[in-house]
């Protein structure tokens, strides 16, 4: 099946710092989403980005489908950004399954 790798697995940032999270996937995808899971377990949809670049406030994401990776940028990080960031992809081969990466655990300290 499709492999989804996220890096780094853990990240500690000082408040105000910027960071880049990476998601690599092993096959062609037609659906890629970035999620933030807060400390209460809720999954928040950040971006639906099978290709191209999108921005939403301090967050932006870029997916280069031909090179099979996606990047999530967090600028001017805040303590509320803490949690786990998941990348999830859907394989273009027809099967509807969405595969999640293991996530990047982010801790933003004051």
């Amino acid at each position, binding site marked *: *099946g499709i492999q989804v790798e996220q890096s780094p697995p853990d990240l500690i940032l000082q408040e105000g710092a910027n960071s880049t999270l990476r998601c690599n996937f092993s096959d062609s995808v*037609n*659906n890629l*989403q970035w*999620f933030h899971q807060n400390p*209460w*377990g*809720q*999954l928040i*949809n950040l971006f*639906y980005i*099978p290709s191209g670049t999108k921005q939403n406030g301090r967050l932006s994401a870029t997916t280069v489908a031909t090179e099979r990776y996606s990047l999530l940028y967090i600028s001017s990080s805040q303590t509320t950004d803490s949690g786990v960031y*998941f990348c*999830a992809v*859907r394989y*273009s081969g*027809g099967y*509807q*399954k*969405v595969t*999640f*990466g*293991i*996530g990047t*655990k982010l801790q933003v300290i004051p």
Partner: protein
Amino acid sequence: EADIYQTPRYLVIGTGKKITLECSQTMGHDKMYWYQQDPGMELHLIHYSYGVNSTEKGDLSSESTVSRIRTEHFPLTLESARPSHTSQYLCASSEGGSNQPQHFGDGTRLSIL
């Protein structure tokens, strides 16, 4: 923002009980999904549905069962809960088409004593 609701939010219950986790969405989405997530781990698909009367098992084997009698409702049932069922269960839905985003509920944290 998506309207998908899960109840209960938290459940602590004894071994052997029958449990039903509720999931409802008001968006008219055809596709619905159940994921299981252990603490600190990734999500694993355990059930999905393409529409009414359609249910399929996901990648991770689960002793739970699901039903889809109405478009908006996708409950998950454990006939006899065991401690190994302790986990978080997340429900999601999406529109038809393979390139539509999934929208998640807030999840149910289940603890079996």
